[in-house]
């Protein structure tokens, strides 16, 4: 994987020193909170309900064991012993003291981590496929391009004060694990007929109050023209995006107002004026970055592992884990392992310091020092030998990290909700826990199959409820927490925005309503249909009836 060189390291030291100075000025009273706010936000430091929250960037969701152990140390020394992995592959600490923040950033910089551009109206962390470099599905390693964008977008002098935040996702597989179509820019790597690679460029997807699946504005952008084309998109947005209303400032509003065709025309017109030789990345640098990702020293192994097959035959818990949490690897004899952060009673995406250390140890001993964070708020060990899988499973299981529920009904995405967030109308975490409890029987969960539930505590949609198979949105009804259900959304390659099922329900009705929805699905599903497929075939009515009929 990419290793920071002296330039990357010195950059982080400079950043850390800058922020230390700013915090000192704030603590000395030289800066008011108003003046300090944009500075702390540029370093990922938010003021939440109870304390400061520090969001740390995990570029394209990739961590090494040293970094993971440092995150564990920060969780232990500066937080309450845990951290929260986010849908954008970052990690947040929710109980940070302002005076500690500079020390934390120093400790992060020592292991090549930082909080640059994890908030503010700038280009945020570029997210990518957590299976990058491991899945046979991909036509190229998307981390190469993610790293190119990381560097290009870091403290970009022209694009650090955009109308609103800006998020880019890249995937190179047909199966999209990044929610690319609901990002400000989604880049889908495609192979042309002549074998060359290009990006399908999607612009103006998003969630929040006005959810959109983004339109494609360019079918095939040659990969070596990526940076100049991004510059053109960002420039059109910087100049013409709305700045009068925070809720209308995302690029999706501009794209929708102009129409995708006109927006694409403006981008193309700007792109033609850009000096490509200056704007696009030189081939030599691209080669350097590419080489850094091509170094995983896989062994030549047989496709079949006796140790693995024996364990699968003898241990039903292991077999269940394999069915649900283990994915095919491009290299014979290896597998991709999903580490679930969705155990019963756990807050989705939370990991304790001890759990982080267990994952770091396993990555070091069995996984080429590679850990990934997923959009679904789980972790991945992308390269584990089949021979080692039983051992890895046992270690994960002993630490509560082997819940066999990836993509199943209890693999829920939830925002922090009213338990932490100043914007929330309602709690999200207890609802996720209720639903997980309702489907605690793993046989039943497997019988139900892939079902993506996502919960947001308010209309800002950080829990991605718009693109859930079953979405749950917290609303405030005369001071009481109510929840509006929606069906049929997807953030994947078949992206769509969910439709509202009916009137909002009280908190204690959500899990039983989900149970009723699942019952209705099981009644009418055809062979091999996921919940989403059945919904798309039969529509809203049978589900509506299942939830609301008895109340009438």
């Amino acid at each position: 994987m990419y290793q920071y060189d002296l330039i990357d390291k010195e950059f982080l030291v400079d950043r850390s020193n800058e922020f230390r100075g700013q915090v000192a000025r704030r603590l000395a009273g030289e800066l008011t909170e108003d003046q300090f706010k944009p500075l702390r936000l540029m370093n990922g430091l938010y003021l939440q309900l109870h304390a400061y929250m520090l969001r740390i960037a995990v570029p394209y969701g990739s961590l090494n064991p040293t970094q993971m152990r440092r995150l564990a140390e920060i969780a232990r020394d500066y937080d309450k012993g845990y951290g929260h992995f986010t849908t954008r592959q970052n990690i947040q600490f929710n109980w940070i003291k302002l005076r500690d923040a500079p020390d934390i950033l120093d400790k992060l910089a020592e292991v090549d981590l930082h909080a640059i551009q994890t908030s503010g109206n700038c280009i945020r962390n570029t997210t990518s496929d957590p299976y990058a470099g491991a899945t046979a599905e991909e036509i190229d390693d998307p981390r190469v391009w993610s790293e190119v964008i990381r560097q290009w977008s870091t403290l970009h002098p022209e694009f650090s004060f955009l109308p609103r935040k800006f998020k880019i996702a890249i995937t190179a597989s047909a199966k999209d694990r990044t929610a690319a179509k609901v990002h400000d820019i989604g880049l889908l790597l495609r192979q042309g007929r002549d074998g060359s690679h290009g990006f399908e460029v999607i612009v103006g997807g998003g969630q929040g109050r006005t959810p959109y699946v983004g339109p494609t504005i360019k079918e095939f952008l040659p990969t070596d023209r990526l940076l100049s084309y991004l510059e053109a998109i960002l420039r059109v947005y910087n100049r013409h995006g709305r700045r009068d209303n925070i809720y209308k400032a995302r690029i999706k509003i501009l794209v929708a107002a102009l129409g995708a065709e006109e927006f694409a025309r403006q981008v193309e017109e700007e792109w033609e004026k850009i000096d490509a030789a200056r704007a696009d990345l030189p081939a030599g640098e691209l080669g350097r970055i590419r080489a850094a990702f091509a170094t995983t020293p896989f062994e030549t192994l047989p496709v079949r592992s006796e140790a693995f097959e024996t364990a699968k035959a003898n241990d039903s818990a292991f077999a269940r884990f394999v069915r649900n949490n283990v994915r095919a690897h491009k290299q014979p004899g290896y597998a991709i392992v999903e580490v679930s952060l969705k155990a019963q009673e756990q807050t989705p995406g939370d990991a304790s310091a001890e759990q982080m250390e267990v994952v770091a140890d396993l990555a070091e001993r069995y996984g080429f020092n590679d850990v990934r964070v997923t959009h679904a708020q789980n972790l991945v060990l992308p390269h584990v030998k089949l021979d080692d899988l039983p051992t890895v499973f046992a270690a994960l299981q002993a630490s509560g990290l082997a819940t066999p529920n990836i993509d199943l009904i209890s693999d829920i995405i939830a925002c922090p909700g009213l338990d932490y967030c100043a914007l929330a109308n309602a709690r999200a975490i207890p609802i996720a826990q209720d639903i997980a409890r309702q489907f605690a029987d793993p046989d039943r969960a497997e019988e139900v199959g892939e079902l993506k539930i996502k919960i947001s505590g308010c209309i800002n949609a950080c829990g991605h409820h718009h693109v859930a198979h079953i979405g749950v949105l917290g609303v405030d009804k005369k001071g009481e927490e109510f929840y509006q259900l929606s069906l049929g959304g997807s953030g994947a390659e078949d992206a769509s925005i969910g439709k509202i099922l009916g009137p909002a329900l009280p908190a204690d009705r959500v899990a039983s309503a989900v149970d009723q929805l699942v019952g209705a699905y099981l009644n009418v599903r055809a062979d091999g249909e996921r919940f989403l497929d059945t919904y798309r075939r039969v529509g809203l009515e049978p589900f509506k009836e299942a939830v609301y009929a008895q109340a009438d």
Partner: protein
Amino acid sequence: MPKLIELADGGARWAEDAFVNVTDEDAIPETGDVILSLARFEAEGDALLSSNSRRVGVRIESNEEIEVLAYDLPRIAVVALAFPKYRDGRAYTSARLLRERFKYEGQIRAVGDVLQEQAGFMVRCGFDAFEPNDGATPEAWTKAASRFRHVYQRAADERVVAFEERGN
């Protein structure tokens, strides 16, 4: 009147501001260098410039596009780009286009909500004069603008980009 900081010799220093900022309500003074709004410049700029006895600058608001100045740029001494709020980043694009696309060689001045925390971005985009709104001194400005030993992308300045440092 805010004091003016100019870039010079790799740093920043106080500068005498020879220009008078003329608002649309003011009469244009008989003599001396002036900065006008775009509307005023379009109406009266030609006459002022042909009198040849003074320099003329134009103030561009963040919702105005610098392309409209393209023809006149060689005769304009100062383009003052306004930041109504520090969060309004449109002037960064205007500055880059002036330098990189239109090869403008006159002064590009940052006016309005201009804070030392923006110094690095501004200098990289081609600004070379600043009317700070936060009491920043040239020393503070220089320090803020040169905090980072490395940069990752090309802009309007001459800084060596990370990939060039790496020999690529």
